[in-house]
């Protein structure tokens, strides 16, 4: 055979190996095995595929100087490296038995070598903790296994002199062609593994993102569905409230509780924490306070009982800062308890004086039996009370500057002529404008209570 023809034939074989490698590595069974799913069906499929490839290796052998260089060992080796000893051995047996039946004085040695190559591939797979060994490892292994093949021919085949001749002629082309075939396969396999890893990482990331988004929207829905839909009419007062939840909701809420005979409970609160846990704790706190407040005109008593119930339920340091006031329109008094909440501010419409509604109480849920001191204030027709959560005064503008209590009081003062609903809108608008494009980190909750002439 002329050198040029030999080269063409080799290129021809290499192309066939490449196409086969591409097709085999793209089969579903093969991919499943790469993912570690070594089911019986998958193993059987790989045995057939690589056994068939081994037979193909034998029959497509290239004749060089009267002997045949072949890639029979390649299929079983890959099968073993990818699918373990069972696959390697199975494919090796198919290729080996087929070779054995063809006869010839090297028959027994060659068929044994093929079976051994598959089995050893499987051993390498096991030693590498059930993973494909990688391009470098696979190439070195194939050079070793084919050398072993040659050694077996020398050891077993008779007559020895002929065996030596065969080995001398075929060793280099055999090792070269098998190793090159392995290089092609291993390269495709490792590419495929990388692709699949990237794809599965991306899927995981997307799943996580989707979960987070779901969580955010669930938390938001819980929180929003427990805010009052309407503001009650209170004789002699003008009342309004608004809550703008942050993207990751913070458990703010406000509530109006019909306490008894015209008296109305006003609640503004902020639960510690974020998202679903905060939203659920908000629902719990709101329900408990509603239960203890209804029919109970004393805010301190209601708050004390609510605190004990919440504290009994509060795990891992959850707490809620809460302002609770009972407004009696008849006497124009507001009796209130401040459990660790940002103190509401009363703006005297005549003098412009500011009074902060503090009682020094501890946030609810922190400690059972906490004392809840109660105070009282009389609200005149000209007064404006502004209730808020920390999301209002801690809204940050440029350079981490906070909106702050001063700015809140100034906006209130400058717009105290507005009806309550408009004032709430105005303040909320100022806070949002102050934050500009910066994301809103915390819920913004506002309530405004204004005195007005009765009747």
């Amino acid at each position, binding site marked *: 055979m002329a050198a040029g023809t030999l080269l063409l034939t080799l290129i021809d074989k290499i192309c066939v190996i490449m196409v086969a490698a591409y097709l085999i590595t793209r089969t579903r069974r093969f991919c499943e095995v790469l993912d570690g799913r070594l089911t019986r069906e998958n193993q059987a499929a790989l045995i057939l595929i690589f056994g068939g490839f081994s037979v193909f290796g034998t029959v497509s052998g290239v004749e060089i100087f009267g002997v045949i260089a072949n890639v029979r060992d390649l299929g079983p080796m890959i099968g073993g490296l990818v699918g373990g000893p069972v696959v390697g051995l199975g494919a090796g047996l198919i290729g080996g038995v087929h070779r054995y039946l063809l006869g010839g004085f090297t028959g027994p040695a060659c068929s044994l070598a093929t079976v051994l190559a598959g089995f050893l591939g499987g051993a390498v797979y096991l030693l590498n903790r059930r993973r494909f060994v990688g391009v470098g490892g696979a190439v070195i292994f194939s050079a070793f296994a084919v050398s072993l093949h040659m050694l077996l021919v020398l050891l077993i085949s008779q007559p020895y002199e002929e065996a030596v001749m065969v080995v001398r002629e075929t060793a280099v082309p055999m090792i070269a062609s098998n190793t090159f075939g392995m290089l092609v396969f291993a390269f495709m396999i490792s590419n495929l593994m990388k692709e699949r890893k990237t794809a599965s990482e991306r899927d995981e990331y997307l799943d996580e993102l989707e979960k987070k988004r779901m969580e955010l929207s669930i938390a938001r829905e819980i929180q929003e569905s427990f805010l009052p839909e309407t503001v009650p009419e209170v004789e002699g007062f003008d009342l309004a409230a608004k809550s703008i939840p942050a993207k*990751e909701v*913070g458990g703010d809420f406000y509530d109006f509780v019909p306490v008894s005979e015209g008296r109305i409970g006003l609640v503004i609160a*902020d*639960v*510690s*924490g*974020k998202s679903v846990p905060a939203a659920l704790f908000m629902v719990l706190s709101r329900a408990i306070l509603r239960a203890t407040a209804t029919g109970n005109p004393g805010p301190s008593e209601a708050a004390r009982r609510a605190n004990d119930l919440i504290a009994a339920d509060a795990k*891992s*340091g*959850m*707490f809620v*800062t809460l302002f609770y006031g009972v407004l009696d329109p008849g006497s124009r008094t507001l009796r209130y308890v401040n*459990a*660790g*909440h*940002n*103190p509401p501010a009363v703006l005297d419409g005549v003098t412009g004086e500011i009074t902060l509604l503090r009682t*020094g*109480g*501890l*946030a609810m849920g*922190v*400690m059972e039996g*906490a004392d809840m001191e109660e105070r009282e204030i009389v609200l005149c027709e000209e007064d404006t009370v502004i209730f808020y959560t*920390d999301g209002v005064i*801690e809204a940050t503008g440029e350079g981490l500057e906070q909106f702050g209590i001063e700015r809140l009081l100034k906006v209130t003062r400058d717009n105290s002529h507005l009806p309550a609903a408009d004032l709430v809108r105005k303040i909320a608008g100022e806070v949002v404008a102050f934050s500009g494009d910066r994301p809103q*980190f*915390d819920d913004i909750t506002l309530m405004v209570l204004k005195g007005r002439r009765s009747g």
Partner: protein
Amino acid sequence: MIVLPTGRLDAPSSEELKADMERLIGEGWRKIVANLEGVDYISSSGLRVMLSALKKLRSLGGDLKLASLRPYVRETFEIAGFTQLFKIYDGEEEAADDFRRGG
């Protein structure tokens, strides 16, 4: 054991502080001083981490003392009523001394 959180104790950084506190308590530390001189802002999430560490330590016979609070942070603790709950000191040395005296 003295812990020195710095910067803004908002929701994300509180998670880190929480993990640190849990690790310290898990390692067996029972008397912990939190030196807050480097903290210029604390959110309700930050308060919560402090509170759960305090509850955990007290239930184990230890305590969490606070030292060197900046005015803004002190006010946040005050509003929530937490100044009744925590022992607060001007500096970490005073807090540590108090631990040594068995306080």
